[in-house]
């Protein structure tokens, strides 16, 4: 199974199992990682992709590393070589009306690179 498919299934599973309460009034942010990139995906709880928004990437001490914009399909790609990810990465997405985050630990990054 290739990585995009794995990513889709993980995202779909997260969506399917997210409790109703957690989904209420929310932007859902998910980030997956392979050896090269972090892929950020942002959707509203009705399933629509967040077509505009700012993605803030911070390290484990919450120091801002970079910002980028969501693409029209609600995704953003962060090349790992462009950020210091040794202490993990905090991914925040802000659409203006909604915001949410995903945390990647150093283990998440290393584990997904090994697999």
């Amino acid at each position, binding site marked *: 199974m290739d990585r995009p498919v794995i990513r889709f299934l993980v995202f779909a599973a997260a969506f399917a199992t997210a*409790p109703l309460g957690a989904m209420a009034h929310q932007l859902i942010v998910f980030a997956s990682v392979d050896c090269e990139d972090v892929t950020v995906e942002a959707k509203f709880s009705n399933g629509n992709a967040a077509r505009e928004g700012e993605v803030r990437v911070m390290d*484990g001490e919450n120091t801002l590393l970079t910002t980028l914009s969501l693409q029209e399909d609600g995704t953003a790609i962060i090349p790992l070589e462009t950020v210091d990810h040794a202490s993990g990465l905090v991914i925040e997405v802000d659409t203006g009306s909604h915001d949410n985050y995903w945390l990647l630990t150093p283990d998440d990054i290393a584990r997904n690179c090994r697999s």
Partner: protein
Amino acid sequence: MRRFGFALTAIYALTASGEALAQETPRVVTVNYALQYMAERLLDGDAEVVFPVPDDVDPSFWRPSIADISAIQSADLIVLNGAGFASWVDRVSLPRSKTVTTAAGLAERFIITETITHSHGDGGEHAHEGLAAYTWLDLTMAAAQAEAMADAITARDLAAPDGVAERLTDLLADFEQLDRDTRTRLANAQGVAMIATHPRYQYLARRYALDINALEWEAGAMPTPAQLDALDTLAAETGAGVIIWEAAPPPEAIAAAAERGLQSAVFPPLAQIAEPRDFVAAFSAGVDAISNAVDMTEDD
């Protein structure tokens, strides 16, 4: 120099043995105090039980650091509540094999909360439903959560099965007794409208047939004039005689409620640790507080 080398070796050996000991003790992480209490009762020292949320933070909305999540991911068992409790659990990767959602088997008993209507982007106005998350305030649901936790502890070999089974029996007996006592103590509250300062008590209200409407106030804080206006409105609509605070507010807040004819009761919902530092005792004290407040309304 040789002595220095020995000292270094000794320090290393002590450190290494300490690490080995630390590694031998399983670690269980819980997302709220109620589950921490149950885990401590079930494990009785066989594992370290960690509730990582600081005392002054609402566990429903805690935002962990990456270091916190790294520590949680490395635990031997991660005990979640379910019903949407603790928003952070949907924002991190947790190892499925080490995770138990204690209320997962209770989905049919979840309470759907009010619909929130809003709009964003080009999606137009629409609505979402939420779930009441404080499931353990119905003690029969708390008991089911304890059973799910005991199964997970046993399945992962974190403690001897016989010991876990024995301690589960004791815990369930305590919950059953508390449930009976609560029914008795709150018999006087039937038909008495109450207002809670935060929507935490849906399962308590359903289990014990209480009439509780809720505001959205910050725990332990003095309400603002606008919030007091909202209290006036809700009290007039419901005819409430009791106000339930999730944490002790300033005396001025109690006085403001009393001026409006509302008797105050503090009932900590026990997502966070509360005095007395024992779930059963704290729950019981909260029940007594409500019952006493109801008695006071009858004296008015």
